[in-house]
């Protein structure tokens, strides 16, 4: 948002006031739906993170978190994920000022960084399994894989979503007036990033 404001005043996106599109709050249905979903999703992650905290230190056998967690490596993939949020902001700013080409570039960059994060997670999971940490090894393994795996599933869905937005834009189905489609993907994407900040702090930084 701030970026677009710095360049040119973004044209006000206004749909013609059609009676059928009227909403009581003035917000689009899909946007309210997305917020409702994110509210619900918070409780999913809250349950998983609480579980992780409850199980902390209860593992009966190694490997324990400190034996296995590689903070520098995950910091890099965390950085990639956080940068992807910046790409998302730029993509939305681009489409809001009607720059479809710019949006396509930024959204692809965002998807790329998301995929990079997923690659990092895949590498990390493989390494953990090789060092003897599986789902059934101990409570740390179970809680860790189920929490980060659930987050990874969110990122995967997000990457697929971003690529779909890219394709839709490539076929000319997303123009300035459809900026909401990008905004919704963005809401989801930022949410998934913010959750990762919490997970990274709790599981990695405080967990070892």
């Amino acid at each position: 948002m701030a970026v677009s404001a710095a360049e040119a005043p973004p044209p006000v996106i206004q749909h013609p006031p059609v009676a059928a599109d009227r909403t009581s709050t003035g917000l689009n249905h899909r946007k309210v739906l997305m917020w409702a979903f994110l509210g619900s999703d918070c409780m999913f992650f809250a349950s998983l993170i609480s579980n992780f905290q409850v199980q902390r230190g209860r593992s009966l056998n190694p490997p324990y978190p400190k034996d296995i967690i590689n903070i520098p490596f995950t910091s890099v993939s965390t950085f990639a994920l956080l940068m992807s949020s910046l790409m998302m902001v730029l993509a939305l700013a681009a489409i809001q000022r009607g720059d479809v080409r710019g949006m396509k570039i930024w959204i692809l960059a965002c998807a790329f960084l998301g995929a990079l994060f997923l690659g990092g997670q895949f590498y990390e999971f493989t390494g953990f399994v090789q060092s003897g940490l599986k789902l059934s090894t101990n409570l740390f393994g179970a809680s860790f894989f189920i929490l980060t795996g659930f987050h990874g599933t969110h990122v995967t869905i997000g990457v697929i979503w971003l690529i779909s937005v890219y394709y839709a834009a490539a076929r000319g189905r997303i123009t300035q007036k459809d900026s909401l489609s990008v905004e919704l993907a963005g809401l989801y994407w930022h949410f998934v990033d913010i959750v990762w900040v919490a997970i990274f702090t709790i599981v990695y930084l405080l967990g070892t």
Partner: protein
Amino acid sequence: MATLVRPAPRVELTAMPRPNVETGLLSWIMTVDHKRIGILYGASAFILFLIGGIEALIMRMQLAQPNGKVVDADTFNQLFTMHGTTMIFLVIMPLSVAFFNYIVPLQIGARDVAFPRLNALSYWIFLAGAIFINLGWVIGQAPDAGWFGYANLTERPYAMGMNTDFWVLGLQILGIASILGSMNFFVTIINLRAPGMRMMRMPVFCWMTIVTNILMLLAFPVITIALTFLLFDRYFGTHFFVPSGGGDPQLWVHLFWIFGHPEVYILILPAMGMVSQVLPTFARKPLFGTPFVIYSGIAIAFLSFGVWAHHMFAQGLGPTADAAFAFSTMAIAVPTGVKIFNWIGTLYKGHLWFTTSMLFAIGFIAMFIIGGLSGVMHASPPADLQQNNTYFIVAHFHYVLFGGSMLGIFAGIYYWYPKAIGRLMSEKLGKWHFWLTMIGFNLTFFPMHWVGLDGMPRRVYTYPDGMGWNDYNFAETIGAFIIALSVLIFIYNAVWSMRYGQIAGNDPWDARTLEWSIPSPPPHYNFAEIPIVASMDDWWRQKYGAGHEGPPGTGAHPPAMAGAAEDVHHADEHAGEAHVHIHMPDPSYFPIMVGIGVFIMALGMITNYWVSLPGFVVVMAGVYGWCFEPVNAPEPGAAH
């Protein structure tokens, strides 16, 4: 509308054109109309109500005498587990959702919900879950670990069979349906209110609906995660709830009740909303202290997340936790009490009209007070330790769930049946239904207080002779059959009235809210013209003018029902119908497709993982088709 021929859609990227049937079975399968989905929900839930009722009757037959031999212990476990699971997840919740579907858009002056296809999807997924969870009966391995499925009992070593798998996966599916449905109603109520209908002008039923749906949005994720842990324990060898691996069975209890207590209010708040519509209509006064009723509903919802450990007093959480949760539990009685006083205040000095609906609403208040009082009793840990796991608890929650939710729902059914069907239900049969229900209900559940305090444990398939429980139990069994008889009368009444009931007209009760301003049954598009709302109970204002709070003409009789048919307030609506061209969403194949796919995926989890694969493909195909389905087939009249 029915005869319109639509040209083939010319939209690119269309997987299939949207189906175009408006009558017959297919039209019900593909419907996205909130009224039809409401009826589907109601009918399915009612059939499940009968199944759950039969389970209860078998249990009562077993317990009619000491050392009963009707069923063995194993079957009894399955019966009480399925009775509880069915009545909570497959009956009271979907019956409430049936009312959300049918009534909420009508009350807020909308033509449909915000996401009609999502609405259909949540119904089909609900049905898939309901069938799935009952499949256990078919192979004789119904869930048997109790409706709250305490861990250890549900872990592999103690539950080798498929019983628990049906339960875990079935609830998982139902959870998806609930979350999808609640997102939809949240958006609908926030965003689709008629112009001028501010939040505080919304009917109380809509308020209770949005509060309930927010509870569902926030509570169901917790049970979903808990069930996922259990699923991983059972299938992938994790130890979340297995002490031998460092896990803690108590974690399950916490997670379950963090969901489970809000769930209790998910069950009761819609009924409270219905009663809050019925009482003002038949007392012919506005609801006493409406804002207080609304705020109390919100307060109940808020507090409901902070009381879960009162289900766990007997597990030894320590005095601090016990005291805190006892306090919060007693605190939640305050907003509940506020509501009861408001309802009674509504009746006070009202011009009461004792229809069956009104009787059920008053019965609701009376029975719910009893259930609420016994609830406050075991909010106190010392008392709870005495009552825990006895029939006293069974008596308590039947007074709030049957005496509360179910009587409220019956009040709602008698109240809104004429709107949905166009004919009134028989009042004579209705009154038989009401009185038999009250007699049967109290005969069944009141003695449970006594045997419970005397120590009769719940969930045990039989009891020895000579404990002094024989007569009570026999009376309870008779009561259960009286309830069954009353339900039969209700079914006869509902079916008979569909054909022979008195024509209802738009507004048979001289009611207060917008749904009564349109024909019964409402046309496909509900409102030919979206109403403009200027006050609470706006339909009353439209009829009798602003500021008119009391009944029109003191001492006047309520309008005779026979006269109601001529009471057509929107005469121009029928005249205008031929010209009204209102664009409604088209039916869709994809919701049911996704529902079937989810069902197959769950089947694969308990049989062979490979079976899940085609299920996954069907789900993906359904979602893909959904995304690329044109929003609507192009209109034939779009040219001009």
